């Protein structure tokens, strides 16, 4: 067992080596894969806040991922097609500026998280799991039926959004933006978890009555965590649309929610780098196994089961010691 900080550093180094190799070997696909891992890690980091640290299992995070994705898609597509989103009472045009799109995506998905959280947090346990799923399904069916943005066909955005000073169509540039955002998100996660707020959140997971006795309403704490979590996952969704230059209702399906959960659990819940490790492992398995056999999903399921049964605490749980906070 090694110290968690040391392990985390190794993760960063390994992660950065992939696009580097991609650059040297002229394999742009490696860069795309690494970017995908980073974006999914951001989504997982958002979920980890409520799932790992907060202890409530949201099966509906695909809703935030998708909402963020659609915000990005809608804004960009209006801008590229030169027609405004609304003309009355005042004109709102689309935009392809990342610096506007990303915060807006976070705001909108955070806003949805607020509404959904207020309704869902009154329940707990498996009821909470199901009601979060219900809301995600509602958004999913809505997106399929809403014809204006392609419905099931989805929405294409030919170009990457603009970031001042960088050519985002370049794989490495786009990767760098995503990577920096991941680091920021993980940093924010770390600060939250180690703050008084984070303490209250984790205590609410263990013992809500104690927390209430101290004068803090557990629901308020959980709601704030849920909103932040939704915003972070929404950010990931917006970046994902940019990566693929495409968004469709499939990102809103419960399979996506399930996959994000898989990353978090696989890596290790309540571990800062858990989502990154989980996402990387999942993508690597998918790629590697997929190249070997058509029946790769069987082996993927098999490997995941082995990991769950024998690697409690996820991959990080196997390798790194628990970090002790004062």
């Amino acid at each position, binding site marked *: 067992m090694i110290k968690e900080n040391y392990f985390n550093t190794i993760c960063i180094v390994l992660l950065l080596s992939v696009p580097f190799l991609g650059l040297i070997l002229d394999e742009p696909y490696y860069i795309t894969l690494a970017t995908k891992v980073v974006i999914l890690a951001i989504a997982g980091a958002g979920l980890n806040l409520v799932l790992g640290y907060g202890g409530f299992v949201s099966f509906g995070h695909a809703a935030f991922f998708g909402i963020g994705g659609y915000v990005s898609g809608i804004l960009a597509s209006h801008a590229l097609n030169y027609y405004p989103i609304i003309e009355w009472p005042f004109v709102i045009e689309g935009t392809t500026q990342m610096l506007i799109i990303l915060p807006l995506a976070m705001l909108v998905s955070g806003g949805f998280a607020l509404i959904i959280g207020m309704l869902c947090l009154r329940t707990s346990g498996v*009821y909470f799991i199901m009601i979060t799923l219900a809301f995600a399904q509602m958004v999913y069916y809505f997106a399929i039926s809403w014809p204006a943005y392609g419905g099931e066909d989805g929405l294409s955005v030919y170009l990457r959004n603009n970031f001042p000073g960088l050519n985002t169509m370049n794989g490495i540039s786009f990767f760098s933006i995503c990577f920096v955002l991941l680091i920021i998100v993980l940093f924010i996660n770390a600060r939250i978890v180690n703050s008084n707020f984070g303490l209250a959140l984790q205590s609410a997971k263990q013992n809500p009555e104690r927390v209430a006795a101290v004068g803090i309403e557990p629901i308020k704490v959980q709601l704030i965590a849920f909103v932040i979590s939704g915003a972070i996952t929404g950010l990931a969704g917006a970046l994902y649309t940019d990566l693929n230059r495409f968004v469709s209702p499939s990102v809103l399906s419960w399979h996506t929610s399930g996959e994000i959960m898989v990353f978090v659990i696989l890596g290790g819940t309540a571990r800062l780098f858990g989502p990154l490790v989980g996402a990387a492992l999942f993508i690597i398995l998918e790629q590697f196994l997929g190249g070997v056999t058509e029946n790769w999903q069987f082996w993927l399921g098999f490997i995941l089961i082995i990991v769950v049964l024998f690697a409690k605490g996820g991959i990080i749980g196997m390798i790194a010691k628990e970090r002790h906070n004062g």
Partner: protein
Amino acid sequence: MSISLFLEQVLNGLQFGVMLFLMSAGLTLVFGVMGLINLAHGSLYMIGAFSAAAIASWTGSFWLGLIASLMAAAIAGVIVEIVIIRRLYKRDHLDQVLATFALILLFSEAMRWIFGAFPLFLDVPDILSGTLSLPLGIEYSKYRMMIIVVGILTAIGLFALISKTKLGVRIRAGESDREMIAALGVDISKLYTLVFALGAALAGLAGAMVGAIQSVEVGMGEPVLILAFVVIVIGGIGSIKGALVGAILVGLTDTMGRFLLPSFFKIFLSPSSATDIGSALASMMIYILMAAVLIWKPSGLFGNSAK
């Protein structure tokens, strides 16, 4: 819109509800007694349908296929319980979700590996084909009638099992206090395996019966799984009564919603917008229902507040 159309739709909602009950009964028992979230329940439904299709093709008899589905699903349930599920009881819900999610991938691909990429053939037996003439001019499919009857019989059987037999007592005790019944000398692992196998068999039966009038293909269990979770959440975890009420409620809401909503909107919107909005709302209806029930009663209609 005629009365007979309306009533036929009510029957359809009932039949859908009954099928959901078969799926949910097992799920709610497993969760209530063992505290386990089992996402692979949908795979057991699929295994039932595939076994029925395979045996029915091989022997030419639908009924043999049906028996095969019960057995195959139960056996699959027993194997999965002993090898994997057993290790998950003490783990938290997250690990259970991950492991059973992985099982879905495994089973789906296994079915595809064994049976190929195209859907299988399974048909209704001749004596049940065609329709029954019911009062008020309703022509109702004999086979669907059978499904309703089987469902009601199963519900009665389960109620009797739970309330009148020793096994039922142990199950109810297990739902209240797991440690206590172990202390009282009940063989917990046998009990759990039995409950799991029972749930699996019910799911397999549902899969086989429904497979005959729908399609037998890989991934057929997942949509039903989601609905089954909606049902048990509405009804309250661990409650068979809740599962029945929840299932009927969901079945009726979905069927009547799909039928009434577009017609309702056609009153004041153009046909294509009415269809768009009506269909969209109809798809979302069940989830709106569940959210509404949970907001009103956070533990479901018949659940108790303790998890």
